[in-house]
């Protein structure tokens, strides 16, 4: 009796895990540039800074940089807005927007900062 109950729980847990793997693509919103090309609506592309150089327009209204996605593809991202803090130090960058004619126009940039719970130098 006890054994059969345990078996039931194991089966159910396995079923849940299986379902999660089936729907795993819907668990994360982030796509690669290749997928972004065929997308109709705005997508979230995640990647890292390909080169440490970030060009900024004189009036600080837009920035341009190269983003390398997970597949290793590098695409120029144009973001109309002020440069987010910690963009250069980010361990991950998510650009939200549309892919158009070889460039990625971002309306939003999300920045993942390295989490160090250490006091900053200028206490």
């Amino acid at each position, binding site marked *: 009796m006890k054994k059969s109950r345990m078996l039931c729980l194991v089966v159910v847990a396995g079923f849940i895990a299986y379902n999660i793997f089936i729907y795993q693509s819907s668990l994360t*919103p982030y796509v690669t540039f290749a997928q972004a090309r065929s997308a109709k609506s705005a997508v979230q592309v995640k990647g890292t800074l390909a080169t440490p150089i970030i060009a900024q327009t004189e009036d600080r209204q837009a920035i341009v940089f190269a983003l390398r996605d997970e597949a290793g593809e590098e695409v120029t991202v144009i973001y109309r807005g002020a440069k987010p803090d910690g963009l250069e130090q980010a361990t991950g960058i998510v650009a939200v927007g549309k892919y158009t004619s070889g460039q990625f126009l971002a309306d939003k940039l999300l920045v993942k900062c390295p989490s160090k719970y250490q006091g900053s130098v200028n206490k």
Partner: protein
Amino acid sequence: MNRKVIAVVIAIWIAGVMYAVFNLVPPVEGLGNLVRLAFFHIPVAWVSVLAFLVSAVTAGQYLRTRQLKYDWVSASSAKLGLLFCLLATVSGAVFAKLTWGAYWNWDPRQTTIFILFLLYGAYLALRSAIEEEERRAAVAAVYALLAFLTVPFLVFIIPRMYFSLHPEPVLNSVGKIDMEPVMLYVLLAALAGCTALFGLLLSSSVAGKTIPSGKGMDE
């Protein structure tokens, strides 16, 4: 022990923790003063998982013994879990807005906590759909056990499998706690305070009920 005395002790403790969070914790590299939010966000998230665990364990106890008091503990704990889950989600969304630049972008962590929220919302709906006490207790207990099976996947496994903007959990895979001692102590104190508060809320919620035989739960 008198519940009022315990409540006062917890209140003083939490006030002390708040003082420490605002005065002893230094601003950190990268987050600056925003780090103070973590001392609310982490404890409530931890308590919501704990509450769902308590709910599942007492549900198992009910199925073994068929004593309704376990059903009450299980139900109260699930409700509190839902409340703390909501607090964690809202504080997390505010945190996300300040650090990533968006309240909600369906990050894996945000997706899974949302699923968890729906799961336990369904638990409450299920309870309110059954009139008869014994039957309700049995059905709800089975559901609480099954619902908790998903918690490890939703809270611990999936967010670590995918890229997430969420920072590495404090207890990361390496098993190394990368935190300044003062912050670690304040965090542990906040966790203790929040857990004690949960215990207090749970016991007063259960004590509010009376057993048909006339024997109260309150000792």
